[in-house]
């Protein structure tokens, strides 16, 4: 335990990193399948089936990253867990109802009598919207330090919309990768619309965070940090330009580069995430509670860490297997 120095110092940091990793993986993975749900009303009947087929084998495992993230928050930083979740009581409830609706709709839409299918499709869409909007709202409230004022509410309403757009964007790029023909063409159009939302959303959060918190301002705009951090916005800008160029040329005749928008969007999400993680460190509840104050007892953290180091690579391994098994274009989903 003392191998790396004082465990009370490095264990909270290790768990903050694990928490960050889980949230990042969740936002990317469930982001694309929530996004597909957000795009549902724009598709026709057969396209809806194809869209579900592209995410059907994955959504459940994707959502498990949320359970892991909330689990790590709960086990590693119990007091932060309580503070954050009680402050976000209502949006959490909205998100849970959304997750319930969309999760069961996957099954009910194909198993219930066919005249109910349309209703379950709506439930899937509404559930996806509730989940995305509430997550965006919680992100905004978190950035604003969980304080409720007219300004923070307005800011959170904006982040709610932008995160939903960002999810629909990564969902559309996923569909470019996983579909063909008319639906793929549609997905390219959706992406072209969504990319402006992503630019505006990332821009708004990046600009707003330093100006609401002097601490974050200092972290970004002091020397030499400013120059060390400069690659983050520069790379994001370059990626957006590349994405725009790629979307104008897609789909290509031999379907080359269909993977590019999805891959580039993942990198974009990762960059945005690092920017935010840097801004908040070392706080787990912004400006109130640091990861060191909130951490559980080292002996409990240690026993989880040992398990995590064994199990996490296995989880990633068999998750990769699932993505490999279901690689290629989505076909009609059946139990065959």
């Amino acid at each position, binding site marked *: 335990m003392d191998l790396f120095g004082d465990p009370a110092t490095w264990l909270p940091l290790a768990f903050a990193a694990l928490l960050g990793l889980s949230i990042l993986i969740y936002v990317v993975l469930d982001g694309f399948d929530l996004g597909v749900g957000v795009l549902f009303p724009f598709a026709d009947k057969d396209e809806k089936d194809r869209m579900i087929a592209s995410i059907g084998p994955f959504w459940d495992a994707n959502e498990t990253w949320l359970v892991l993230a909330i689990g790590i928050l709960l086990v590693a930083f*119990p007091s932060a867990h309580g503070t954050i979740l009680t402050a976000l009581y209502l949006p959490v409830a909205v998100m849970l109802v959304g997750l319930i609706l969309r999760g069961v709709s996957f099954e009910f839409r194909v198993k219930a009598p066919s005249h109910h299918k349309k209703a379950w499709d709506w439930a899937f869409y509404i559930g996806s919207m509730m989940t995305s909007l509430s997550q965006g709202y919680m992100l905004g409230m978190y950035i604003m330090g969980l304080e409720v004022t007219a300004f923070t509410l307005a800011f959170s309403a904006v982040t709610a919309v932008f995160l939903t757009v960002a999810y629909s964007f990564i969902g559309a790029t996923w569909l470019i990768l996983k579909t063909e023909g008319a639906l793929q063409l549609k997905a390219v159009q959706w992406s072209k619309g969504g990319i402006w939302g992503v630019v505006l959303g990332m821009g708004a959060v990046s600009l707003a965070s330093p100006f609401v918190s002097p601490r974050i301002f200092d972290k970004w705009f002091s020397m030499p940090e400013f120059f060390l951090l400069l690659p983050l916005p520069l790379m994001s800008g370059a990626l957006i330009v590349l994405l725009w160029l790629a979307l104008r040329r897609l789909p290509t005749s031999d379907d080359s580069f269909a993977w590019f928008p999805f891959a580039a969007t993942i990198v974009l999400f990762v960059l945005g995430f690092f920017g935010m993680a840097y801004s908040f460190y070392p706080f787990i509840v912004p400006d109130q509670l640091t990861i060191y104050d909130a951490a559980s007892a080292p002996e409990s953290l240690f026993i989880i860490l040992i398990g995590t180091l064994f199990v996490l690579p296995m989880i990633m391994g068999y998750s990769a297997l699932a993505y490999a098994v279901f690689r290629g274009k989505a076909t009609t989903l059946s139990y065959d």
Partner: protein
Amino acid sequence: MDTLILSRIQFGANISFHILFPTITIALGWVLLFFKLRFAGTGDQKWVEAYRFWVKVFALSFAMGVVSGITMSFQFGTNWPGFMESVGNIAGPLLAYEVMTAFFLEAVFLGIMLFGMSKVPSWLHTLSTFLVAFGTTMSAFWILVLNSWMHTPAGFEMRDGVAFATDWWAIIFNPSMPYRLVHMLLASGLTVAFLLAGLSAFRWLIGDRSNGVRATLKTGMTIGAVLIPLQILAGDFHGLNALEHQPQKVAAMEGNWETGPNVPLVLFAIPNEETRSNDFEIGIPNGASLILKHSIDGVVPGLNDFVAEDGTVLHPPVAPVFFSFRIMVATGMAMLLLSWSAVFFMARKKRGVEGLPKPLLWAMVPMAFSGWVATLAGWYTTEIGRQPWLVQGVLTTEAAVADVPAPLVASTLIVYLAIYAALLAAYIGVLFYLARKAAKGEPLGTRIPASGEAQVTVAAE
């Protein structure tokens, strides 16, 4: 109503709704593996038919379990922050191990199990089915470890109101864990047994004479007939364990107020906490002493021992524990009667399903959900029986509740209840819809490739 009681109702509603579905998936996963292996062994199409139908029930139940489980993982924080702040050092790692060793395993391999049949070799599909079943069972293991620890905490010390782990082995194998785990796994097996038989009996009654429906009806009733005596035995052991560690719970279950020998087994009564006695009591003399102490003058603890000097009641509310215990036992007895008579009629003259009298088949249909009734009643017995404690002797339920305005809890509670009621209706409706469809011989859209076929498709890619 205040935040405490509303939060308890809310968590109770969520966990009651949730447990319905894992209770099915834990055992159904193994039953599906059984169907698949039987097919591999015999090549008989009836096992494919059985797998084809029940894998759909599994997928639907699994989705219901996942979404209601996510809800609970958040409610620890939104409604019960005191729980994690006080015993998080112990509950946390147990929950973390559940997520890491069970949830991901189930979720990932479920995708391959449901949709990968033509995409992976047959052995990998069978392995995926096994891993899903194994994952659901692991999940049950970890959550029952935590739940048992809340009843019989061990392997920890308290420092400044916070529990710190001292012995993980003692925490995991805490005194009530083996009993509770066995009792719950058997409950899951019985729930699935009667669901299998009940839906199959329904199909039979509306004219389905396929070999698949014969196979599942027979499988269900046989599993039921084998497991129910084991469950009665396991329940008895579990009760004796509770008597040792939580006597106030057993006193409430028995409706026994005064500690003493020759305590009767109360068959029916209305426990009255005002007069601290039973109204309308009907009992068998010395019965409780005999069951709990194996001697007619055995001393059985009474509820009056658990009232503090100042009148503070330290035992659970009596009536809910008393009645839910009786509902569980009565359901178990009905299960025993039904499954043993079914097995008797099927074995008589080796007539199989044809030998079952019609009234028995009709009785099986509502009994399809008897496992749910018994499981819920059993959980109410043990969980309400733990009150006023959240963690026995360590943390009271009242001390753990969140400081959230009551109207907020009430309004979300109403939304949850409405959704759960609608989903439960939809779930049961779809089960019978699928059964009717299968009985008419309409395709359910699933197919198991004959062995070898799967490899061919992989090779052709």
